[in-house]
């Protein structure tokens, strides 16, 4: 590729550093950072905060899943919490029938996949608000089913779930719950990061931004949507499994429309389309009420929380990650990368 390779004065002609080479050290740094942050709660926090941290882990898994569906594939779902509910209630039913956490997890993944297939097929032709609506319908039907199967699911009243027992780990202990949740959360994160580097991940982006362009290069739009739906449902299901095991109690309102909306809030506030954003968003949603408790004003959150949410969303329209990125860019800009800035 020499000869006519163009060199225009304003473009420069150096070869790009197209991703290669820095993979391994970068991966190691990321793993190290993750490990360090993960070590903070058990080492520094009391039981209550370790419990909250475990909740963050569960919600992070759910948010990562929704981010794959919404942030990357552009498919709006208002039933993501319902899929968490599918996971949580499957866990409950399995647990009451005497199955252990490993079998529960296997069942959760299976049931989530089936539920997602059932929902995604009528939604294939839909996008945007319409899709959101069908998913919402699914959520309502699920809530209705739970309310009307009291013997199986505990109904409106909710149900208390036996804690996970993994050897000597017992998830009703906050520390144990945290350690148990850490593993799936780390795996879910690793897969989500990896997804961004695959053709599957790019198909999703293409479907999100222009279905016509996606088709023009041969992307199977419908199949990509279904795949995203399935992956996100499994994430949600696993999150529901964790949630049930960590909190030990589940009820229909945990998985209702508002719960789904909050997951959506987590994706958007964190920064749609990014793994880090999903984590930050989940942390915001879980921990923000606690900040008020910490300040000694637990009953203030419902009053100020809404305003705070609106303000944060307006101040960081690209999510917390977007804010960080802008700051970073400005710092770099000040250092003066003249060729980059025009």
């Amino acid at each position, binding site marked *: 590729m020499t000869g006519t390779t163009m060199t225009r004065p304003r473009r420069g002609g150096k070869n790009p550093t197209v991703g290669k080479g820095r993979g391994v050290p970068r991966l190691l740094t990321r793993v190290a950072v993750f490990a360090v942050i993960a070590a903070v709660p058990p080492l520094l926090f009391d039981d209550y905060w370790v419990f909250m941290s475990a909740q963050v882990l569960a919600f992070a898994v759910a948010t990562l899943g929704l981010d794959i569906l919404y942030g990357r594939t552009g498919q709006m779902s208002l039933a993501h919490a319902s899929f968490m509910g599918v996971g949580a209630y499957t866990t409950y039913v399995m647990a009451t029938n005497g199955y252990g956490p490993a079998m529960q997890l296997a069942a959760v993944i299976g049931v989530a996949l089936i539920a997602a297939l059932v929902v995604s097929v009528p939604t294939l032709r839909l996008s945007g608000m319409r899709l959101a609506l069908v998913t919402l319908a699914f959520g309502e039907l699920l809530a209705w089913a739970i309310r009307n199967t009291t013997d199986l699911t505990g109904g409106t009243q909710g149900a208390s779930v036996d804690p996970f027992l993994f050897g000597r780990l017992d998830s009703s202990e906050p520390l144990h719950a945290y350690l148990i949740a850490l593993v799936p959360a780390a795996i879910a994160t690793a897969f989500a990061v990896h997804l961004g580097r695959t053709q599957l991940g790019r198909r999703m982006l293409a479907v999100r931004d222009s279905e016509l362009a996606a088709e023009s290069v041969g992307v199977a739009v419908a199949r990509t949507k279904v795949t995203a739906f399935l992956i996100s449902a499994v994430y949600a299901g696993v999150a529901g499994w964790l949630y049930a095991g960590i909190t030990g109690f589940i009820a229909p309102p945990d998985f209702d429309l508002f719960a789904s909306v909050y997951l959506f809030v987590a994706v958007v506030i964190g920064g749609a389309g990014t793994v880090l954003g999903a984590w930050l968003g989940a942390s915001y949603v879980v921990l923000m009420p606690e900040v008020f408790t910490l300040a000694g004003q637990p009953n203030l959150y419902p009053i100020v929380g809404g305003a705070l949410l609106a303000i944060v969303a307006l101040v960081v329209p690209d999510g917390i990650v977007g804010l960080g990125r802008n700051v970073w860019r400005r710092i770099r*800009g000040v250092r003066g990368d003249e060729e980059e*800035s*025009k």
Partner: protein
Amino acid sequence: MLTLESVKGWYGSTQALFGVNLRVPPGKTVALVGTNGAGKTTTLRAILGAVRTEGSVRVDDVDISAKPTHRRVNDHHIAVVHEGRGLLSQLSVLENLTVGANRAQRARIDEVLDLFPALQGRTHQKVSLLSGGQQQMVALGRALLRDPKYLLLDEPGLGLAPVVIDEIYRYIAELCSRGMGVLLVEQSVARAASVADELVLLRVGTVDRVIDTADSAQVDQLVADAFGVHH
């Protein structure tokens, strides 16, 4: 006279114009030329008030820099053909032509349709169903309907067949001779030189030079300097 004095423009935090000075007298055509990304479109947007700007934009000695876009357009008789047409794809052809126009302007609709016979009979179709060239005609039609004093054209020939381009430039020349001031963004210097009285070369958001199109040596020099193409 449409006058820009040391106009700077920003997109968010990135600056695109670094002090542009420009004058478009009535009855004259001024062509803005420059490479891709030089800031031609941004200059037009600055006149409309559609980017964040500093500096002064004056029309007939009234400073309009503080006015919102719709006031600039309505009060000072400016019309624009946007880069990439700027049509409202959900609206019909007729609605696209007449949107925002006042009663007197709307009365001129037949005049405009005469100019573009291809649009006749399709006025109630959604514009998104027209071919690229037909869409460009709608964009031009919308500007001409307003009978502006100053007409801003951003690459009006983009995607048009030569036959239509010729037609359009002929019409613009006629309007110009009737006293309209035209600020034209044009990719082809040759074409710009043939229709404009003055060429303004933009470079990285500043005016590099202004030349009279009568001076063909200067035009050649400009082509050579700015675009690195030697004839």
